[in-house]
């Protein structure tokens, strides 16, 4: 079971790879769209990369609920 810190670090690397945002700026309260330059298309990439990295399934219906990095971290921890 991954810890919150491990999942946050992993997501930060993914967001850095896809959107070019420095990993230290990827924080729990940040909005993907408003703060991290991750638009709806890039969010699909983030989701696919996160599924692969954390061995979790994130259904399309669930993606719209993942507004902040914290939302995604919690979902991954609960469903991994």
């Amino acid at each position, binding site marked *: 079971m991954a810890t919150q810190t491990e999942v946050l670090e992993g997501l930060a690397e993914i967001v850095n790879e*896809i*959107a*070019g945002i420095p990993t230290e700026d990827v924080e729990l309260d940040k909005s993907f769209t408003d703060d991290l*330059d991750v638009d709806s*298309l*890039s969010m*699909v*990439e983030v989701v*696919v990369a996160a*599924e692969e990295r954390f061995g979790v399934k994130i259904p399309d219906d669930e993606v719209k609920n993942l507004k902040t990095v914290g939302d995604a971290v919690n979902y991954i921890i609960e469903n991994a």
Partner: protein
Amino acid sequence: MTAENRTVVVTGIGAFTPLGGDAASFWQGLIEGRSGVAALTEEWATDLPVRIAARTAVEPGEILPRPLARKLDRSAQFALIAAREAWADAGYETPATDDSSKLDPTRLGAVIASGIGGVTTLLDQYDVLKEQGVRKVSPHTVPMLMPNSPAANVGLEVGARAGVHTPVSACASGAEAIGYAIEMIRSGRADVVVAGGTEAAIHPLPIVAFSNMMAMSKNNDAPQHASRPYDKNRDGFVLGEGAGVVVLESAEHAAARGARVYCEAVGQGLSSDAHHIAQPEPTGAGVARAIADLFAHNELDKAEVVHVNAHATSTPQGDTAEVKALRKELGEHLDHVAISATKSMTGHLLGGAGGIETVATVLALYNRLAPPTINVDDLDDDIDADIVTGEPRTLPEGRIAALNNSFGFGGHNVVLAFRTV
């Protein structure tokens, strides 16, 4: 504001080409008579009938940040780099949509064409689908592969709201885009238009497909000598990649902001062959009608024309037909016209050709210097015209004009005219 037939001028240029990653290095390469063609070193090229091409001198990934580059097809990457250069060269510092901009975004357009569109994205993502499955296909695939993607991305970059367009006519696409942009300004739809052509089709499928049409040079052992327009031993075109973009502007708009003007963009002549889907009309009749259309609908004297940047792709039929057409329309005056086939150096950029060759034509007028045509070791007896070979040729003083020809599979003929100011 909407006066008909306003004068249009060129105020900015940008080029990302096999000879250099900007307009200055491109021009330097042309004047030096340098070839941008090389052997393809990729593993996939090993067993192909054609193993040469003219890659861009600089990799776009060295210029664009990776998060941006991964959302753009290679053709859009080229267009964006060339458009940024042209935009800055024209003296614009921000997108028209910025609050600090003095330019009205609803008076700014973008017209960028490619002949084939995002073909490498399409083919690469099909490989991803087959090899890695549904989930791994990039959500950016559609906006990357659509042929209007370079135009749309350039439009976003500069903040164009008067209209963003993508004419497609195979190898005439880039020139058609610039012609369309000239008309947007002349007719009053826009004051400023960023226009050009781009192409990125160096991939095994397009290479094999063109090769199976017997259209490409198979001179794999001598890459730098393979593109040889007008030479008796020419055996087809060499595929190139890159983009050329210009900023066009109404003369009044350019004058009001004190912009540097390279030359006037006089207008275009258009025709179509109705002859064959891929063969050029052998007598040059279609091309001749495009040239006639240019002179019929623009205030341009044949005597002013002293230079032609020819389409001349190095195919046996096409090069000859184009010169016949020029002879038919310009008559004895053609003896006083310096003709350059810059594809001898850059290869054939398909939809990008009209873009980079417009930049070359603009710079030829601005510098009063016609680039050489390289590899003309033995001039074809059927080429009855003054081909610039060896050293670049100084062009005359006074008011002079130049033509840029582009023709495409499907029988599309586009002739653009530019003139010193």
